[in-house]
Each structure stands twice: as structure tokens, then as C-alpha cells.
């Protein structure tokens, strides 16, 4: 149950009678985190400062009635659940307020302690459920926007090479004598498309799946990736430094670790400056057993990233660099993987000096987290 959570429910009690404030605090302080206000002016300033979950207000107060107070704060503080404390004489005002949705419940004076506790707990349940729903909605909206952007972007990125293919096929028709040249072009276009589709599969595996903990042979992963990347045109004359400090077996999600390493190393190789005579890429992996952390650091002395980009570079389809082609998925995949592994990602970069990405991941024990 939500009520069993360790933090006490934050309750604001508003009443013009000092004696009522005191006795409310005395009766309920052991259950709730209580804030008192002797008028609605004080109440509003508390609302501005504290994350109040439940407000109980007296109806008859000299400066403002409880229902008017609730009506006034409904725009500025819509979230706290509002309970009205009133004598039977005010019943019409109470019903009107409940019907307008300004008040969740009402309590009668003099109050019954047990009823107050139950009502506050129920109100807090509503508050917390609404909040949870709001967070879930925000997460859904994010996923939805990403998907929308993805479909928009993919429709172009997949359609563009197909249009090129059709164009080249048309040229073969017109100039059959140049068929060999055109088949070479078709090959290049198809390879590009293939890379794009593989990236989409990676994105899907990185961000859409939950983690699976298993033994990860991280140094072999790095070697395999470097083997694969040696055919990249940028790879030649890059000096690759590797530094591993791994004492005991690493347990993590090997697909996510693979995707992190793959994208970071790929970028480090791709975004070199061709005029630089001493191109370097460094890969360092440290296991910090006392602190239970694994650090992955990939640095290069290449083009660097514009310092104004900040966290923008991790957004989907955001490209930090416009000089070279790319689709803006790589760092997004890295970021999603790091998030799924409860890790942290930082980068330092200077234009034309290079970039260093540092990723810290919690070390897992053999199974589970």
C-alpha cells in the first residue's frame, strides 16, 4: 500500500482558532507531517514552499471562507487533496464545493480522531496515485513523441536510399553500357541502408528491453569491435590505446555494454580530424571494487563537440556534428543503455582538441542487481 511508505504524509491544517491548531497537531503529529496556518494568507505561503499533499481547512474564517480559499488555490496548487472542516450549518456550501470538484471530503466539527486519520490517509492515496499517473503519463508522452519523431525521420531515411536506387536503375536503363559503374553505386547505397536498419535494431535492443545480467567479457568485446572497425576508412593511421584494470568477473547486460562500447568507439574513430598527424583513440576500463563501480572511458583527439550542445547530444536524431553523415542515433542509444543500467554518463569536449566520454556503471553481483 502507498500508505506504508516511509515518508509521512504532509498535511496543512488551516483554522483561525489557535486552540484548534494546537489540538490538531497534538492529536495527529505521530501519524503525519503537520503544517499549521492561522489564516489563508499564511496557508498560501506554506503551499508555495512545501510539497503539501493534503489540505484541511476550516470553513468559517474571518479573512476568507474555506471554500473560497480552495477555489482560489485550485489553479496555483491543483495537486493537494482538499478537505473541508465544517459544522452542519454550512452544509449547502459544502455540497456545492464538492460538486464543483474543489473539495475531496468534508469533516464535521468537532472532529473524530479516527475519522480524520482515515480520511487523510485516503486523501493521500488519491494524491499519490494521481502523481504516479502523472509521471507515467509523462513517460508515455516521451515515448510517444520519440516514436512519432522516429516514424517521421525513418520514413525519410528509408525512403531516400530507395529513391536513389530507383534513380540509378533508371540510369542503367538509359545507359546500359555503364552498368558496372551503376551496380557499384547500388552496392554502396544498399550497404548504407543495411547499416541504418542494423542501427534501428540496436536502438530497439538498447532502449526497449529490460536488462539481463550475465558475465561480460569486456576486453574481448573491445577487441572484436576494433577488428570490425579496422575496415572503416578513417581507421588507418589511428593509434589505439587500451588500458584495462579488471580484477574480477564483470556481471552486467552484455548487449547494452556492447552497444555503449560500439557507439563510443565508432564515434571516436569517425570524428577524427584528417589533418591531424597523430590521431589517437583511447579506451580505458576500470573496475572499482570497493565502490562497486565500473568505469568506461573512451577518448579521442578528433573534432570535438560544440560546447553549447550539453545534453542535447543524447537526444534522438540529434546530431552533434554536421560535417559527417550520420543519423543521430548513436549517442541516444548509448544514453538509453546507460540509463537502463542505472549508470551515469559525462563528457568533456573541446572543438578541434577531442572528446572524452566517461561512463560509470554500478557493478552487479553474480545475479540480478
Amino acid at each position, binding site marked *: 500500500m502507498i500508505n506504508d511508505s516511509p515518508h509521512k504524509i504532509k498535511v496543512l491544517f488551516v483554522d483561525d482558532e489557535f486552540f484548534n491548531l494546537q489540538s490538531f497537531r497534538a492529536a495527529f503529529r505521530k501519524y503525519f507531517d503537520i503544517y499549521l496556518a492561522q489564516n489563508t494568507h499564511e496557508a498560501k505561503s506554506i503551499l508555495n514552499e512545501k510539497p503539501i499533499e493534503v489540505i484541511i481547512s476550516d470553513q468559517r474564517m474571518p479573512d476568507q471562507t474555506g471554500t473560497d480559499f480552495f477555489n482560489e488555490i485550485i489553479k496555483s496548487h491543483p495537486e493537494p487533496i482538499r478537505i473541508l472542516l465544517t459544522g452542519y450549518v454550512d452544509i449547502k456550501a459544502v455540497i456545492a464545493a464538492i460538486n464543483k470538484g474543489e473539495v475531496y471530503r468534508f469533516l464535521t466539527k468537532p472532529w473524530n480522531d479516527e475519522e480524520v486519520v482515515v480520511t487523510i490517509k485516503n486523501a493521500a492515496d488519491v494524491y499519490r496515485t494521481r502523481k504516479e499517473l502523472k509521471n507515467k503519463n509523462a513517460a508515455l508522452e516521451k515515448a510517444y513523441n520519440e516514436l512519432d519523431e522516429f516514424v*517521421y525521420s525513418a*520514413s*525519410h531515411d528509408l*525512403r*531516400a536510399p*530507395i*529513391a*536513389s536506387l*530507383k*534513380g*540509378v536503375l*533508371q*540510369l542503367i536503363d*538509359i*545507359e546500359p553500357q555503364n552498368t558496372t559503374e551503376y551496380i557499384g*553505386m547500388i552496392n*554502396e*547505397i544498399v550497404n548504407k541502408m543495411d547499416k541504418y536498419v542494423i542501427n534501428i535494431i540496436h536502438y530497439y535492443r538498447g532502449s526497449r528491453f529490460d536488462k539481463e545480467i550475465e558475465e561480460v567479457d569486456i576486453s574481448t568485446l573491445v577487441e572484436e569491435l576494433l577488428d570490425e572497425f579496422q575496415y572503416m576508412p578513417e581507421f588507418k593511421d589511428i593509434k589505439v590505446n587500451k588500458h584495462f584494470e579488471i580484477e574480477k568477473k564483470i556481471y552486467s547486460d552484455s548487449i547494452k555494454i556492447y552497444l555503449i562500447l560500439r557507439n563510443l568507439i565508432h564515434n571516436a574513430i569517425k570524428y577524427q580530424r584528417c589533418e591531424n598527424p597523430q590521431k589517437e583513440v583511447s579506451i580505458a576500463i576500470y573496475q572499482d571494487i570497493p565502490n562497486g563501480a565500473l568505469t568506461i572511458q573512451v577518448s579521442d583527439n578528433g573534432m570535438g563537440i560544440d560546447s553549447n550542445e550539453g545534453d542535447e547530444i543524447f537526444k534522438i536524431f540529434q*546530431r552533434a556534428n*554536421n560535417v559527417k*553523415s*550520420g543519423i543521430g542515433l548513436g549517442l541516444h542509444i548509448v544514453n538509453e543503455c546507460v540509463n537502463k543500467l542505472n549508470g551515469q554518463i559525462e563528457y568533456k569536449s573541446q572543438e578541434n582538441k577531442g572528446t572524452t566520454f566517461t561512463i560509470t556503471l554500478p557493478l552487479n553481483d553474480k545475479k540480478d542487481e
Partner: protein
Amino acid sequence: MNKAVIVDDNKYDILILEKLLKINKITEDIISFSTPIVALNDIQSLKLSREDYLFIDIMMPEFSGYDLLDKLVEQKVDLTQTNVILVSSTIDPRDIDKAKNYEYVQRLLQKPITSKMLLDALRT
């Protein structure tokens, strides 16, 4: 002789359009840019006339074809004095509708461009 300017980040599509312009005897004088940044810098000095063609791709990584048009107008390039033709592989109506806001854009050609499309577009 009239000339054609092509701005497109896709090198294959540049090549296809260049070939089609030559094969269909539209022009041999073709200047191509694979990035709008360089195009923005150089187009003014090309002094395009009513006889010339400016082909601009819509989706480019640095900035879009529409942005390029806006920036050229800011540079006081008079685009009403030449033939502006947009090209795109997009089939998204949002991108296509946007062309209506640019009065001097004569056509939006959807890739792949064919000889027929090109001849039809340039005849009128």
C-alpha cells in the same frame, strides 16, 4: 547556354540529376553542392538568370532546403529571377505543403526524378 545548380547532400542523387540533365540535353553546365553551407556562400556569385535552374533538396543535415531559400533571400538574392525547383524523397504532406509558402518555387519534384518529370517541369 543556361546552367543548372544542384544542392543535395546525397551524392547519388546529385549524380542521377546531373546525368538526366545531360542525357536530356537540358544543359551541360552544372554546378553541384553537397552541402547547403557552401551553396549559401557561392550561389550569389553565380548570378542565376531566368534561363537557369536551381534544384534544392529539402532534407539536408546542416539545414533544410527551405532554410537555404530563407537565407538566400536574407542575402538579397532575388529568387524570382530564376527557376527554383525543390526536390525531395519525402512523401510527408507537412513537408510538401510548406512549398506553397514560397511563391517563387515553381515545382516540387519527388525523387526518384525521371526524364519525363524533368522535361515536363522545365517545359512549362
